[in-house]
């Protein structure tokens, strides 16, 4: 079975631009979470989506948004990019919120660089 997949692998954007990151969960997993990992820090929770509805949101500005599609894949959108948005963006999937007691399966991440 394929694991969690993310695209693109790397991305370079300019300040003020918009970016869309994509994630496909493991087959059978209905929940997707997004994390931001800035260099030298642990991942920070951004969103969780389950059955196309937002189930959790971290302490991120409204420039960050996400959605989940009927096939359970997900997009993370970031508007008006800032230099500080440069990070590795990780997607994680699970069967459903809480069912794995927090055990999630992470994708390889998208490395976003904002110049």
């Amino acid at each position, binding site marked *: 079975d394929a694991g969690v997949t993310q695209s693109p692998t790397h991305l370079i954007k300019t300040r003020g631009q918009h970016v869309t990151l994509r994630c496909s969960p493991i087959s059978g997993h209905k929940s997707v979470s997004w994390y931001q990992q800035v260099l030298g820090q642990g991942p920070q*929770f951004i969103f*969780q989506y389950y059955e196309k509805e937002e189930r959790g949101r*971290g302490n991120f500005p409204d420039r960050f948004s996400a959605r989940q599609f009927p096939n359970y894949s997900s997009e993370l959108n970031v508007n008006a990019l800032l230099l500080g948005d440069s990070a590795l963006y990780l997607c994680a999937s699970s069967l459903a919120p809480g069912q794995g007691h927090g055990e999630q399966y992470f994708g390889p991440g998208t490395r976003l660089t904002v110049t």
Partner: protein
Amino acid sequence: AQSVAQPEDQVNVAEGNPLTVKCTYSVSGNPYLFWYVQYPNRGLQFLLKYITGDNLVKGSYGFEAEFNKSQTSFHLKKPSALVSDSALYFCAVSPLTGTDKLIFGTGTRLQVFP
């Protein structure tokens, strides 16, 4: 507020020696605790978790972790380190909000020398 602390930025150990990577936590109620490992240019891989029960939890690749409620610690251990264990290790806690949200520590880089 719920938090996780990993007091060591880096741990160095010789191959074949035992290793310990430290983690302390601050949560309300009973914690769900996790260890993840991250190899270069890779996502996080689940190693083990503590939910309830035996304080010694066994996980992948020969790793284990000891839950100590009185010291609010969840240290990762391995009896004999391998060079291939060299990676970035993250401790995490689940705040049990009905989501899968994990709160991660800042990570500890493990370097195993031949």
